[in-house]
């Protein structure tokens, strides 16, 4: 949830994304929680969560590192 919105901050004005996350963040969070219950294989859930987090965090991490931490 966090990394997804973090991903959006790379594309859109960040304070507006955060404000939007007030609604979408909590909803997404609840759905992700529900997904963990419905899944057949727990390991796959972990895998998907980690993969998604990594993918969405990529632009942020790149930006962060290219600018030497800022």
């Amino acid at each position, binding site marked *: 949830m*966090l990394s997804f*919105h*973090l991903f959006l*901050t790379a594309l859109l004005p*960040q*304070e*507006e994304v*955060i*404000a*939007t*996350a*007030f*609604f979408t*963040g*909590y*909803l997404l*969070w*609840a*759905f992700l*929680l*529900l997904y963990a*219950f*419905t899944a057949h294989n727990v390991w796959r859930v972990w895998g998907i969560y980690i993969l998604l987090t990594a993918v969405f965090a990529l632009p*942020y991490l790149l930006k962060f590192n290219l600018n030497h931490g*800022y």
Partner: protein
Amino acid sequence: MDTRKYNIYFHTHTISGIIIAALLYVIFFAGSFSFFKDDISAWQKGKSAVAKTITPDYNYLFDSLAQHHNLRGRNFDFYVLRQGHGTYVNMSASQDTTISKPKPKKKEGGRGRRGGDDDSAYFLFYFGDKTPSSYAEGYDMGEFLYRLHFLAQLNQIGINIGTPFGYLLAGIVSFMFLFALITGLLLHWDKIKSNFFIFRPWSKWKTVWTDMHTALGVIGFPFQLIYSITGLVLIVNVVLIAPFSKLLYNGDSEKLYESLQYSRSMKTEYSYKPMTASFDMNAFLAKWQKEIKGGQISRIHIGSYLDQNMQVSMDTKPDPKASFAGSGFVKVDIASGKVLEQKSLVDDTNYIDWVKGLIYHLHFGDFGGIPLRIVFFVLGLMGCVVITSGIMIWLVARDKTNIPVYKRKFNFWASNVFMAACLSMLPVTAFTFIMLKTLPHIDQSVIYRVYFYSWLVLGLYFIARRDLPLMNRQTLLFSAILCFGVPLANGFSTSLWMWKTWQQGAFDILFIDFLFLALAAICGFSYWKVRHQAKSFSILSFKKREEKPLANKVV
């Protein structure tokens, strides 16, 4: 939908629902009443805020403060009440050390516990009768119910986990509520169309509860979804804000709050040079009030009073009729009269204002006047009905012969306690309202004691009786009598009978009387119905029945 998914939704819905049931009921019940927070305050104090327009006289406030304090170099914060008939005042110690004579002091923390050993002050001031009162004295039933609905009172029981316990609990309940809402909707998804109009009140009890639960749950779903999300944002948004501030603002949450327009830095330098001219606050406000065209000044900050560098900042909110969202801001240097910063209410409304306006107005229901509040109140009570019927479904679904007796006993015990706590809330609330008018002195601790002890006593009584139909009948009867007593108590103690408040145009006081009269009528009617028509049934050799008063109102 395949059976596996259905079962998953079913169980997650049940578990998340039953865990939060009792607390969520408290939140919904108290929250519904706090739509009328301002009216309840007016009712309790016997001073209507709408009968006559009150012009805030800040000059008088400053003059009377100046009789006891040297005001030079102090900072003031005014948090103006929503109807503008009063304000919370936070006065700091003077920055002029020749006036404040600071002792070395420890840093104090904690919201709402301001004022320490220096001569700073925090109080509530009503412009109508021009009297200050401390927060605890000014505390009223509206404030109590309002704070109860986010469990603020639990903050005081001394569980120290770094964040206010009650708020955190309310936040967790809110999130689980959101989760239960989503699973509930998915669970019911296939039947949502076919069962939309199904309500079988003459069927067996379990069907009645199930229909009530799903029908009202589906009708109320958008409302409840909004409340779970906006509630989360309002009470525990820090869980969302903290990681963002870590990642995007290098941990500087002040800066994040500033860019989200929650706070602004309002620091002023104290120059030790007194301002030459005098300062007329009333004239100043009148000028800006005209500027913002129907908007309301919600907060005023005065930095370094009567100093060369004195600055006044104001936050303004638009009239909900004119604009749904928006926030204005202006900062003025008094000595030169220059406007340092300004954000217009009309032209500078941005996306963040919209989001916050949406959250705030949807949660407080303050954009459509009394009719909207009544609708929201009814929808809120519908939430209560969904919760209690949910408890009953949970109980009867587990009351089968193939389930071990010890489990059935525990289930009954749990729902007995839950129902006792929930159903006794209405009579207890009405009782406290009556006590407000009969006890000689009312302040925060009195309200706490009356409400919580009577709740405890009544709750324990019903738990001990272990009989749900009896609990239902008696709470209905108590509610009917006590709710009817509310306007009577008001009339006898203040002689503000309903016809008098009508004549005076004190509609806020009238409304509370009327509300309780209506509740009394509904409870009385339901009591009569339950006595004469309700079918009895039995589970586990104990008998039980559902609460009906609220259901009657909406169905």
